[in-house]
């Protein structure tokens, strides 16, 4: 990467766009004239009309704009890094996490911890999984490194709770099985790039 752009500190010669503004008043008389002119403009009533119109809309026409937080929440950008979600496979409903431990390893604040075991189906089972949100810095590395797109950043941006445990266990982060149809594919950190297919070489198959 070229560092040229950081080395150019001569800001004066760069292409700033100047706004077409009136000159500020310079003398006391000019300032007085500006105050009087602004005070007696009907603009005030234009603004009051807007307020009045919106009041009517909100109270009598059912067009309220206020978000009733915490009962209502605004959607946030998929790139926002909030409390983690654990996703499931859409087809089988199984959790996607394979217990590879990469998130645990890459975590720079060392707040992810997991236990795995050999289960009766000869698979690696994640028996315990926890993120210590008291230490998590929401850097997004875990979501980025996850090979299965299993751990992602969800929309829960409230990082305060009465109990730390209330959102740090595997089950709490996992998509509830009855809401599987509502599960959204994550588009932020770690998501597959749109041109991923172009970047891989195909492997011959003998079938």
């Amino acid at each position, binding site marked *: 990467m070229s560092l040229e752009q950081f080395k150019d500190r001569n800001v004066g010669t760069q292409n700033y766009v100047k706004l077409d503004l009136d000159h500020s008043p310079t003398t006391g008389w000019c300032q007085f004239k500006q105050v009087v002119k602004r005070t007696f403009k009907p603009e005030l009533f234009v603004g009051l009309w807007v307020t009045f119109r919106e009041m009517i809309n909100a109270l009598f026409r059912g067009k309220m704009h206020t978000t009733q937080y915490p009962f209502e929440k605004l959607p946030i950008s998929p790139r926002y890094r909030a409390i983690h979600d654990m996703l499931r496979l859409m087809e089988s409903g199984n959790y996607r996490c394979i217990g*590879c431990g*990469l998130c*645990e390893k890459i975590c720079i604040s060392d707040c992810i911890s997991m*236990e795995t075991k*050999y289960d009766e189906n*000869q698979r*690696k089972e994640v028996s315990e999984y926890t993120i210590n949100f008291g230490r998590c810095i929401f850097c997004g590395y875990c979501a980025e490194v996850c090979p299965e797109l299993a751990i992602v950043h969800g929309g829960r941006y409230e990082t305060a709770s009465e109990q730390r445990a209330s959102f740090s266990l595997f089950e709490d982060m996992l998509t509830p099985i009855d809401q599987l149809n509502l599960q959204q594919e994550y588009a932020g950190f770690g998501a597959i790039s749109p041109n991923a297919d172009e970047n891989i070489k195909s492997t*011959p*198959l003998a079938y």
Partner: protein
Amino acid sequence: MSEVQIVDNMVDITIDGVEYKAKEGEYILNAARANDVFIPAICYLTRCSPTLACRICLVEVDGKQVYACNSKVKAGMNITVDTPDILTERRAMMEVYDVNHPLQCGVCDQSGECELQNYTLELQVDSQSYSIPDTKRETANWSSVLHYDPGLCIVCERCTTVCKDMIGDAAITTAKRGGEALDKSWKDNMPKDAYAMWNKLQKSVIAPSNGTGSTDCSDCGECIAVCPVGALVSRDFVYTSNAWDLKRIPAVSAHSSDGFAIYYETKPAGIEDRTEKIFRVTNEWNFVSLDGAARFAYDFENDTASKDETAFNAGVEALTKAETIRFNSLISNEEALMLQTLKEKKGVKLYNPEVRPFQKFLKLYNEASGASLYNGSTDTALKCDFAVSVGGALRNDSPGLKYAFNNIQKMNKGAGLYFHPVGDKLIPTFGKSVECFTHKVGLEEATLYLLLELFADKDKLPSDTKEYLASFGENELLELLGADAEAFMKAFPKMMKKKENFVLMVGEDYYGHAKAENLVKLIVLLEATAGFQVVMNPPKSNALGVALICELDDEATGYTVGYNENGDFKLSALGDGDLDMPAMNQQEGTFTTLSKRVVPTNAALDYNGYVLNDLMAKLIDAPSQTIDWTAYLPQEKGYQAMDFDDMLNTFDNAGQDNRGYLLKVTYDEVEPTDAEKFDKDDVLDGDIVYRANPPRQFNDFSDKAHQIFEAFGLYASEERAKALGEKAEILFKNGKITVDVIVDAKMEGDIVALSDFKSAENVYELFGESRYQTVTIRKG
């Protein structure tokens, strides 16, 4: 950078234009490794025979392609590691290995330390050219510890090679895979060596060699250690941890006297419990092979200990009034020195029935030979080509010597003689030139006389001994020892062909022998007149250290403090005593190994209680830490004034053991004296019990480990066990014991083996010094 050890027959070779020194006749691969030059290789194991399964070590020597693992160094060789042709071959081989290899690195136990991963990256394989339909291969558990996933297996044959060439069990072998045959067109369209490798790979898979679904072996787990991929893993470890999460702590195995170099691998036990836990034990498998106890008996820590002041004060009081301290060989050199200092300052008796006979034997040997210690070691034994084992049950007592005995047969075109009253079915399978003598108990002297007869330069023998030896009739000694004399005398010249280096392995039976003095004289004669090097197997753990450092007493009297043993007051690392002590994986210190090396071991796990040094600080003038004692180990016994922290704990690339230091052995000139005659009728008759543990079991600590399943009991051959029934009551002269009868299918004959690893059972008291006793066995 490791310096290459300069020995006599060094020659100059050139690798990639740089000149190096190498031993003539050594394999190119080993020479390169010793010089820190990297040649890729998967299937080669340093102390085993080359199998040519992977073919990746292909190099060019003077314009010709050879395999570095099986071509020997010659003076002036010019070696090129990478040529464009060879790189094409290697890349094709790695592509072939990747064909149908499951893409499950994410869950695989080997991920991160996998040689398939490493070489795929090293050779920059970023696309695949080959394909073949896969064959269904089922995962299987081969034994109580072995787990095999054939889907991941690349059939490098390292497991089968180490099992055969080093361990001696030969319990696994290659078997038919039943895979689809390669398309003929590949033969012309791909590099030659890669095709040959693929052709073999596609046909084979690994399986237990007895044709059943389970292995009949000693469960040492060495196959797990050498597996380059995740195909062989211990059942306990499967999917429990990633390699990179584990912290490696260099240590010494606490069980057998071999002092195997191991790494305890630890990480926090779990989410709830953040204390460190040992997840597995690994080793430098190219240079050291472990037994089952070293690999699997690791979780014997004392995890309930706390700083209990009342118990500590009681401990101080107990040691103050103690007349005797009873302990065993599972103790570090430093602790042994503490006890010895306590003896010197306070006059307590040190009682250790495990080590005392060995100590006496060493003293006798010292007097008779003038040498302060025996001259051999496991490392030097591995270079011999004729091995003789006397007085020890190789399979049970000394895994390291068993491996050496076997390796000599396989790698050095060697021969071997095995003398023991308990018949063994495994040892004859080590090689064609192995003869086993199952002789009567009491004929140990006859054994050594036979060896003199066979090997000694008779002119050098003292006159009386020479005369006595001549008095035996032809083949009389052989027949006395139960051999088919004629067949043996016919085979013997063949066994002796081209043999130059002889090693005598002396086992524990001799130490407590009633005629130990005469046995020592005969051993010294063998050394002097037949050029044998001698290795003695210290009974257990740190027996050699204890024997050298402590002045032991013959009996315990009065108020006794037991250290991991029974006593009026019990210091115990097992968590069952009056005062807790740290177990061997919780403390640092040094061990003295069978190979006369003083090796450092480190603490793998936390320990919250008091240590022996704290007690010493109250009783005598003690330094602040246990390892402060290390520099004060007795120099007159061969120890050096080296600080613990100055000791290395590594092997170099040539396999040289650089751990700690070697004991200094001094030699005085002593004229060999005549050995005494023996009474050939002085043999034990009737029901004989032998004191021996099953393989993998050495002490209470190995018993505590959750992956060691060998039970305490009476081990017997199949026939004998059938006759004995399920339980047996054994009546000794001074007591009796009722135990389960357990079949050891590799035992032969009527002698039964009683375990001694449980100190609570006090088996040593029942036997006294001798390992054999005539008893009455009743159905229990």
